[in-house]
């Protein structure tokens, strides 16, 4: 009898997946040689599942600034900002984020996960209401639990459903905070933000948008979906991460809400964890500047995304609802998904295997995330391998059309 016996069902399911080949949830890279290439099991693979949207992890300026910071300021802060104080870089990064988003305030967290935990648990409490998109990321659900607010889900990307659910809460006391994501991490679809903002205004609620996957990707200057949809004035809080487009680790929140700084003494996931080390702050600051200086990165990313999405769709794969930096291919069942994933890895492509319940509609997915650093040749190699394995497994081609028809 072990304390972990309660997870027996998961442990058995995990064992069955590992028995089929490599472990999809702990692939070990012997080396990562560029934003788009790694070595695993002695074999070079194209990295197509690392959310490295702008490919800045090996940017020479980011590396140089990061190395300088570690030499000048040491390896870590060894504690939280309320206890050990802030380094100049923490404040500089917060100013840079506030200015990038055109907001009065910004706050930096040690991870994106903690940013959601911190912001949600501080903004709403026991008598308030959180209204979440049903497909929200785990960090949003966990933040909701920590907040102790009453949590209601609305149907994914459905503003009318959101309206209906808010209407039911109309006469209840307490504040209402709607939470949506710019780009959803599994299928890569964007939120209908304009319509959601209209509902928000009519129902007198607040709105938080998690731009984790859309920062640096969407909008004329890369601020994300709110900028792309032209509704930034309606978004009260933007949360994001440094671990995707900015190539490091960490999270943030920006807002114009008055008295924002009280968060620094009440927000537990900010207060009771070590602050980001100087090297991470320095590379993030530089990456934020690079994002603004070089819109060509975003254009290359979008061109690559279109190439992969259209290539896979043309082959007959079931891709997500829209073109974007996340391209998900639905697999007929879990066994096929696991085998397909293993074969891709063995032939030189690493991407993410996503299994229910982490996926919408209980479908197993092969999830790609595209980078501005991918070359068109790498994208074509990936499409070629998908075609080859797809035919071998009968996921595309005559067999698949017969199965679909039958």
């Amino acid at each position, binding site marked *: 009898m072990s304390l972990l016996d309660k997870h027996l069902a998961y442990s058995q399911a995990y064992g069955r997946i590992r028995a089929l080949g490599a472990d999809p949830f702990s692939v070990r890279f012997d080396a990562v040689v560029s934003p788009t290439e790694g070595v695993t099991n002695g074999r070079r693979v194209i990295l197509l599942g690392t959310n490295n949207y702008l490919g800045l992890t090996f940017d020479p300026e980011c590396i140089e600034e990061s190395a300088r910071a570690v030499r000048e300021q040491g390896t870590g802060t060894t504690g939280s900002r309320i206890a050990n104080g802030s380094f100049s870089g923490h404040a500089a990064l917060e100013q840079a984020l506030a200015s990038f988003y055109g907001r009065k305030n910004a706050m930096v967290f040690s991870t994106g996960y903690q940013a959601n935990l911190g912001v949600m648990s501080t903004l709403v409490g026991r008598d308030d*209401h959180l209204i979440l998109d*049903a497909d929200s990321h785990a960090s949003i659900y966990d933040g*909701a*639990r920590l907040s*102790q607010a*009453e*949590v*209601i*889900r*609305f*149907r994914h990307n459905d503003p009318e459903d959101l309206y*209906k*659910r808010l209407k*039911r*809460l109309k006469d*209840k006391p307490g504040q209402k905070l709607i939470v949506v994501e710019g780009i959803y991490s599994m299928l890569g679809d964007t939120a209908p933000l304009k319509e959601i903002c209209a509902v928000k205004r009519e129902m007198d609620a607040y709105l938080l948008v998690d731009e984790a996957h859309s920062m640096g990707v969407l909008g004329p200057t890369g601020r994300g979906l709110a900028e792309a949809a032209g509704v930034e004035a309606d978004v009260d809080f933007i949360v994001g991460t440094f671990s995707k487009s900015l190539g490091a680790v960490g999270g943030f929140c920006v807002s114009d809400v008055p008295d924002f700084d009280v968060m620094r003494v009440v927000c537990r996931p900010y207060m009771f964890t070590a602050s980001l080390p100087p090297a991470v702050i320095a590379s993030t600051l530089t990456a934020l500047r690079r994002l603004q200086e070089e819109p060509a990165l975003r254009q290359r990313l979008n061109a690559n995304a279109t190439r992969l999405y259209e290539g896979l769709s043309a082959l007959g794969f079931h891709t997500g609802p829209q073109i974007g930096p996340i391209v998900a291919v639905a697999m007929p069942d879990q066994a096929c998904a696991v085998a397909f994933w293993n074969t891709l890895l063995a032939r030189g492509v690493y991407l993410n295997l996503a299994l*229910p*319940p982490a996926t919408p509609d209980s479908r197993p997915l092969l999830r790609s995330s595209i980078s501005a650093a991918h070359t068109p040749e790498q994208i074509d190699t990936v499409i070629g391998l998908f075609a080859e394995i797809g035919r071998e497994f009968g996921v595309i081609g005559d067999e698949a059309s017969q199965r679909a028809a039958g």
Partner: protein
Amino acid sequence: METVTDLTLREIGRSIEKTLGQKIEISETTNISRDLQIDSLALMNVVMELEDVFDLSIPLDRLAVVETAGDLSSLIKELRTKG
């Protein structure tokens, strides 16, 4: 399906069938996760259906005490009376 006289329980059964896409047997004592293999995510989807059926809000934190179909039925009745 056995005869279910409790209307709330009947609606719970219907919502579960709609979510799972299959016929199920249900009674007051049916254990939602063990007997019906409904995980936490599927249960949240069932709840979303039930919110529409009864036109009420069922906050997720209230599900912590729900183990059986009877528990869910009592929760809905309580929320309906509370208005």
